[in-house]
């Protein structure tokens, strides 16, 4: 399997992107900002299509759109925790813009280029060149380093904002910085797993880690491990099963881990309420 260059590229990019998604995703879940992550992944779609419609580099559109919107919703929301109705209204419009750019792009391009929209929506981890894969790995690694540098104060301000503020931690600025990192990760991950499947790598590993461990540092490591493991397993599965797209396989494995974590939690707590078995 690793004899194929496209598989080696997929593993290189996939590993680092998953690592970044797992780390960021744990905070996303802890801060109950899954909806913001969801919105950013859709923003990535519009940004990429806007760049494609204008003939610019897709990567540029991705980063400008997601980091810009992340900074915007961070600034608008109270205490840099955006309100869900505001997010909903803004991103319904942004998706409408995406539909506009898609129609401009399709009208302006030849038929063979029409697959670019599918690439943006659902990713093309198996179609990365060696250079693209290296760049993706580098950017994702940089996001990991940035997040780990902020991790301690961010964790404190997430778990107990009052105490953090009392200790002089800049809670608001940290929230904004976190959203910007989330935006950068969303932009980068879009190229690997697609705008629509990104949520699976953010929510499922983070949610599973939270269910499996109550200790924050332990959970953070667990989330990263689950994300990377799901990506590897998904890549192997989609290599073995021809009609299974890589994005679907990765998300399916991550979901399975989440369901397992929820079931384990329900059994361990001894109280099998219907609400905690289902996932």
């Amino acid at each position, binding site marked *: 399997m690793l004899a194929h260059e496209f598989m080696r590229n997929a593993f290189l990019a996939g590993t680092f992107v998953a690592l970044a998604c797992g780390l960021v995703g744990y905070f996303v879940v802890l801060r109950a900002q899954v909806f913001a992550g969801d919105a950013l992944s859709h923003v990535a779609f519009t940004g990429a299509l806007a760049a494609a419609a204008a003939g610019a580099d897709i990567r540029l559109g991705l980063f400008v759109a997601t980091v810009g919107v992340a900074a915007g919703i961070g600034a608008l929301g109270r205490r840099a925790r955006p309100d869900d109705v505001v997010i909903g209204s803004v991103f319904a419009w942004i998706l409408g813009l995406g539909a506009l750019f898609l129609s401009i792009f399709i009208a302006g391009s030849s038929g063979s280029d*029409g697959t670019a929209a599918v690439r943006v*929506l659902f990713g093309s981890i198996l179609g990365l060149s060696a250079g693209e894969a290296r760049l993706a790995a580098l950017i994702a690694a940089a996001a990991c380093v940035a997040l780990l540098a902020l991790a301690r104060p961010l964790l404190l301000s997430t778990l107990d904002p009052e105490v953090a503020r009392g200790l002089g931690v800049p809670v608001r600025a940290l929230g904004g910085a976190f959203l910007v990192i989330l935006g950068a990760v969303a932009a980068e991950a879009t190229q690997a797993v697609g705008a629509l499947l990104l949520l699976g790598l953010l929510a499922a590993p983070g949610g599973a880690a939270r269910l499996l461990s109550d200790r924050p540092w332990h959970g953070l490591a667990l989330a990263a491990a689950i994300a990377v493991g799901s990506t590897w397993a998904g890549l192997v599965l989609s290599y073995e099963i021809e009609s299974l797209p890589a994005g679907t396989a990765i998300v399916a494995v991550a979901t399975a881990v989440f369901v397992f974590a929820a079931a384990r939690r329900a059994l361990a707590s001894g109280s099998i309420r219907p609400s905690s078995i289902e996932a």
Partner: protein
Amino acid sequence: MNALTGISLDPVADFEAVTEFPFMVNALWAGTIVAVLAGAVGWFMVLRRQTFAGHTLSVIAFPGAAAAALAGLPLAVGYFGACALGALGLAAVSRPGAAGSGQADESAAIGTLQALALGLGFLFVNLYGGQLASLESLLFGTFLGITSGQVQTLLWVAVAALLALAAIGRPLLFASVDGEVARAAGVPTRLLGAAFLLLLGLAVAATAEITGALLVFALLVTPAATAQQLTARPGLGIALSVALALLVTWVGLTIAYFSPYPVGFWVTSLSFGLYLAVRLGVGVGRRWGPRAGPAAAIGAEA
């Protein structure tokens, strides 16, 4: 869609041009039904802060439609079946009134469900032989080719859903505004929450047929959010939300008819423009007005 005749800015002539073709008449009827349903259900969704759940339901409509296409069934079967299943799934993971950690778990579960739905949708489209055109219309909708039969089905679904909403409306309002007190008063909040999610699923499935899975939101959230900026009174708010949804649907369909750009873009842009204008207006009014606007009351409730 390029019209045969351009827009003339004469309302009567424009109305005649828009209603010249049966497909456009059907689209207007379908849009009207969907706007009424989405406006009313959306008002409760915004009040209950279930925007994320609503979005997830709309995303779940996509694999439903793709699976129906794959199995050779009518798309409506896929939309309604998937949304009903999705609503039951969401009801199972939802924890009404849970704050802090419960909320985090719930949103992680909803997000995971949504990502899985999208992954499955992509798989089905792939198995189907994935043509971009059909993928695009599943995700972003089309108002072309809506048949009279579809309009009739939509009408029955909408009437049934609105009757059900009217039947549970009063206790649902109570449970949404103050879950603790409602539970103490013997209102079955959990059951009501599940019933509401089912209704939301119905509304989403009906809307998704017209606007596509990704743009359902434009009619569900934005008109309702605009209405709640303007008034905190339930009856008036629902009426306003329905009126706004109708307005953006009609104007959006008409503009889309005369322009080369998709209907989804126009409907979302119009409703977002209205929302922004109202928010700014309410903000200015609150700063210089004699007393706090009704939006403050909604904010305090939530």
